[in-house]
């Protein structure tokens, strides 16, 4: 089975809020100094899903990441987890793309990679979280899409996907090739270890420019949405510390307060 996984490098979402700064003029988030960017959590679980499939029935995993040249780090991380090949898609023309633009570039890279059975994406990115790229990509590729997967089983010509819904799960069958977006409920991704880290460190990660994948300027220039304002919501919450001479006392005072509120 040939699997292509789309991964994104993002600002570490676990940073303490005091380190989170925006540039309201540019409508951008300022990368916190000294905090290395990471693979988007959902994408890492998409790589994990691919590795589990490969463990069971073999095949190849190719990872692509649209982003700065530094995104080779998340490609290498994916290779250390178990992926075989990886490419970074980087071009000045790829900067500031919306979901349509990103999906278009990914579709062109996938066309260049060639035959595939399954494309995996995270359900959304951990930064802007637009939650659309996978579905638009499937529309461009003309293949079925199953979103919010927490488990994927593959047979010969189809896959069975367990997907997360509000009050439980759905089991969905889709023919191959298909695109599946992966949710965090898939479970913890494996930690890269030993030989795999060595393999990844030595692996060449080619950078593909717009011309390499035949991405046309006319398609890249089409903005479907624009961000007109970026702001940090002011949280006026003034935390009232519940008094008490002992934790027990504070707990009783809090209980009284809560009984009032409810």
């Amino acid at each position: 089975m040939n699997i292509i996984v789309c991964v994104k490098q993002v600002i570490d979402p676990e940073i303490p809020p005091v380190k989170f700064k925006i540039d309201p003029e540019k409508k951008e988030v300022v990368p916190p100094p000294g905090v290395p960017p990471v693979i988007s959590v959902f994408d890492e679980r998409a790589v994990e899903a691919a590795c589990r499939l490969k463990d069971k029935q073999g095949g190849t995993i190719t990872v692509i990441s649209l982003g700065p040249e530094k995104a080779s780090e998340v490609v290498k991380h994916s290779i250390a987890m178990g992926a075989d090949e990886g490419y970074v898609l980087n071009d000045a023309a790829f900067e500031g793309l919306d979901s349509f633009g990103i999906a278009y570039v990914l579709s062109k890279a996938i066309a260049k990679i060639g035959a595939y059975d399954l494309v995996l994406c995270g359900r959304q990115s951990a930064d802007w979280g637009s939650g659309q790229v996978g579905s638009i990509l499937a529309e461009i590729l003309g293949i079925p899409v199953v979103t919010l997967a927490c488990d994927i089983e593959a047979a010969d010509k189809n896959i069975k996907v367990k997907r997360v819904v509000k009050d439980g799960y759905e089991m969905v069958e889709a023919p191959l090739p298909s695109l599946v977006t992966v949710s965090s409920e898939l479970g913890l991704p494996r930690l890269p270890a030993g030989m795999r880290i060595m393999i990844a460190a030595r692996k060449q990660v080619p950078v593909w420019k717009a011309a390499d994948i035949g991405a046309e300027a006319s398609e890249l220039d089409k903005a479907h949405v624009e961000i007109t304002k970026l702001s940090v919501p002011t949280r006026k919450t003034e935390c009232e510390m519940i008094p008490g001479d002992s934790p027990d006392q504070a707990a009783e005072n809090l209980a009284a307060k809560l009984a009032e509120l409810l």
Partner: protein
Amino acid sequence: MDNKGVLVIGEIVEGKLAPITIELLGAGRKLADELGEELSALLPGSKASGLAKDAIACGADKVYVAEDGLLDSYNSDAYTQVAADLCQKALPSVVLLGHTDIGIDLAPRLNGRLGGGLAMDCLALSLDAAKLLVSTRPVFGGNAHAEVVSKSARPQMATLRPKTVPQAKRDDSRKGEVIPVEGKVDPSALKVKVVERIKEEVEGVKLEDAEVVVSGGRGMGSAENFEMIRELANVLGGAVGATRPACDEGWAPMTLQIGQTGKVVSPKLYIAVALSGAIQHIGGCLGSKYIVAINKDKEANIFNVAHFGIVADYKEVLPALTAKLKELVSA
């Protein structure tokens, strides 16, 4: 611009309009009035006709009913087909969906097919001076809010987070038109098939519906200690939540994870125990009316968003808190 009007993609739950659909009709009515255009709704499934009068009473000028048994439960391919067909014929300027199981799956696919401009998980919808839809959505786990506008792509689409706007006021004297959607879903075009639906049995109250949510984080330390969260939730008739690290440790099932990577809840009372308040977690509970934090670290970020706090080891607070509340609740 040829596109006109606001279209709400409705959802039917247990034979009634879903609460989010009634919220969307309220929000959609406002936008339509400001635009001086019509509000329409699409109702899918064999119960659609019977509910058209409800949609009209809630503000719709036109109700498109797609009466087809294949639409009774959600199928991504079937819904995309019907919604895309309608949008291509009716050419709405604005399309609104709920940020629900259905909307999360349907909206981006529909947008991919129509080539519109979509913003997901919106907290507010308004119009700018040029009467373009401005959708406000959380980004970076709720750390920032972005306003999203689609200058030329149509339709302008948004999924609205449930319970962010009030429900439409019902007026049974309102008049409207009911239009059957032509054509049936072509079963051979359905590539993706739902073969089974498994309801996760949740003890007690469902997280999303709960008035009270008690959440535990990494600081709980063990599965045994996590029981104290359950006890407190039980006393308050509330639901149990957890942070991603607590779920990853296996102290709580993944389905109880609250935050950007899990469920978004907006209860009346949210009690955060032994959790630092990572941004991605807070993104899932900021809509709560009151947040209470119990943490031994007074610098923990959770105190920046909490309304009430106790700086202490939770092990010394929860037993007394649970006991006292039990006493007050039974009184």
